[in-house]
């Protein structure tokens, strides 16, 4: 009965929730989501720079606002996806196999931030290089060989892929 009373109050007062939930340890990890987010960042940088320096029409200003927002979201996604793999998947055996992974992840965090803060394509390219290196390291810890190929869509940059099957 007391629980029912609290439920009723909860509907109007909206009690704070306290999470007794976190990651389900499903063991599904894949750096491809970080790589796709990085390609998206580069694409948004390209589209932003295509707008040029001339005074923008109202329509282009609206487009710029959307592009900047999506760049922000996807650069944050890169950082988040890499952080989760580094924080959840990597354990001591993986750290032993990839001893420079901490520095690599830190550089990804810094470069991801640089991509959020500016519109220099060089930062996007640097981010892709770092994330590809991270992807290669990840697959190495799983005993999976990798290869590099140009992605078949803009920005048509080189991406590390796992050799599966």
């Amino acid at each position, binding site marked *: 009965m007391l629980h029912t009373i*609290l439920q009723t109050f909860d509907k109007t007062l909206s009690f*704070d*929730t306290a*999470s007794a*939930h*976190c990651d389900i*340890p499903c063991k599904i990890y894949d750096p491809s989501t970080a790589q796709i987010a990085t390609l998206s960042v580069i694409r948004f940088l390209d589209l932003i720079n295509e707008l040029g320096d001339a005074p923008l029409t109202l329509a282009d200003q609206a487009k710029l606002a959307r592009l900047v927002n999506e760049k922000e979201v996807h650069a944050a996604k890169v950082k988040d996806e890499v952080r989760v793999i580094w924080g959840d998947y990597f354990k001591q055996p993986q750290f032993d196999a990839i001893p420079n992974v901490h520095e690599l992840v830190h550089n990804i965090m810094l470069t991801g931030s640089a991509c959020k803060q500016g519109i220099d394509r060089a930062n996007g390219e640097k981010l892709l290089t770092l994330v590809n290196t991270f992807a290669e390291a990840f697959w190495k810890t799983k005993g999976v060989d990798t290869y590099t190929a140009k992605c078949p869509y803009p920005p048509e940059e080189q991406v590390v892929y796992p050799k599966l099957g």
Partner: protein
Amino acid sequence: MFGFRVHRIVGQSMMPCLANGDYVLSLKRRSSYRIGDIVIVQHPEWGKLVKRISSCRHDAVLLKGENPEASLSSERMGWQSTDHIIGRVVFHIAAQ
């Protein structure tokens, strides 16, 4: 009011002690917290969590979930300053 707060539990990481949908009443302690206390913590990365204190030092606590299969590890949560503790669970109202 008087340091009491009501929280609704979300998730299973404190099972079987606390279940999803349960309510708890927490109280902000003025004295130090103890090992074994269940506390509500405002974690800087994971948000508001409910966990049990597994270890203490003078200004920080280490937390653990009751259900290791569904809980963040103590290592991931890290030592948390007692300043982050919203309160100790003093009353539990289980869902039916």
